[in-house]
């Protein structure tokens, strides 16, 4: 599947957060290159900045220094409108807390990115139904997020990220907060997604089982405290 064409390039990435107790430096000039079709796992314990890294790659946060190039475009230097459009078309994101709209049902939540992209209705319905069937949500298209289990909500979030068929899929702790039964359902599903999606997947996780599924691991080092006390 891989033809060594870089999809994602991270160069000398650093993010500094100001906190009450001082400055925290994440990533510390992180460099990484992920090629087309690769399944990479960003690993590290809680608090090392995995979510921040996913957000920076998706263009939802700016780094303090360094650059992130996705499909040949530097997302850290793009203007807001171009970045938003680019993200909608090229990057699918599964957020840690699923982040579904409570006022929309399963079907409407999944088709939302296609509505934003102004895909015509027939095509939109077809693609949404296809992904609903694939992820085993066929019995719940009209259910609202509040009526779903955490695992089902995560499936809806995955379906929403995949419906646009993005070349790059970002997943932030896809099994975080799930019980063992839900993890056992979701893990083979993620394997299937990698097999069928054909795109590139970057998954942030602190689960060893999930990290082993990936073809490559990008460990994130512990953050450095630049200043731990105030003078």
């Amino acid at each position: 599947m891989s033809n060594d064409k870089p999809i994602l390039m991270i160069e000398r990435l650093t993010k500094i957060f100001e906190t009450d107790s001082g400055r925290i430096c994440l990533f510390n000039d992180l460099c990484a290159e992920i090629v087309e079709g690769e399944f990479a796992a960003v690993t590290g314990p809680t608090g090392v900045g995995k979510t921040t890294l996913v957000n920076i790659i998706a263009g939802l946060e700016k780094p303090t220094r360094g650059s992130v190039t996705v499909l040949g475009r530097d997302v850290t230097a793009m203007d807001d409108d171009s970045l938003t459009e680019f993200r909608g078309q090229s990057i699918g994101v599964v957020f840690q807390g699923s982040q579904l709209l409570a006022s929309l049902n399963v079907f409407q939540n999944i088709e939302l990115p296609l509505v934003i992209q102004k895909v015509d209705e027939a095509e939109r319905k077809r693609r949404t139904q296809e992904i609903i069937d694939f992820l085993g949500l066929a019995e719940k298209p009209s259910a609202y997020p509040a009526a779903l289990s955490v695992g089902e909500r995560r499936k809806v979030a995955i379906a929403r990220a995949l419906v646009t068929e993005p070349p790059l899929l970002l997943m932030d702790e896809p099994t975080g907060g799930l019980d063992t039964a839900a993890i056992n359902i979701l893990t083979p599903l993620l394997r299937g997604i990698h097999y069928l999606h054909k795109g590139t997947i970057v998954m942030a996780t602190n689960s060893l089982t999930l990290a082993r599924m990936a073809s490559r691991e990008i460990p994130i080092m512990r953050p450095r405290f630049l200043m731990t006390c105030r003078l």
Partner: protein
Amino acid sequence: MNASQYLFASFTRSEALATVEIVVSTAASVILGSSLSVSWFSLTLSTSGLFLGVFLVVMFMVSLEMASKRREVAILRALGAKRSSLQQAFFLRIAHLAIGGCVLGVAIGYGTAMLTAECSLLSNEIVGFVVVASLVSSLGGGLVAARKLSYLKIGEVLRQ
């Protein structure tokens, strides 16, 4: 994309309060304008006071509304909705409230003036002046608040 349908499923309390403020201020200005003893100068002065209140109330209410919808706005932005389309959705919502509140306010003011037999003194110029002041203040308040969407940090909101 019509973002309004994802953001405004129902009529909220803050929207109701903003609309009441627009209706009351517009009606009060029309009644004031129908009074024999009020000059253009005093009408302008008192109307300015009333509509400064409308501007501030609408701005505050829209800010509250946006604060309660931060998560929805962040999700839509993360999925590819442009900032301008969301700002437009908020502004259109305010426009609906402003126009509705203004029409209702003029009707109530006119009706009250009729009851006090001062309706004949109400000129088109006065009604026009009140309508313009009402719309400018409410839309202005909405616009100032809607601009705050530009500063929304999507990553931070979604992390919370």
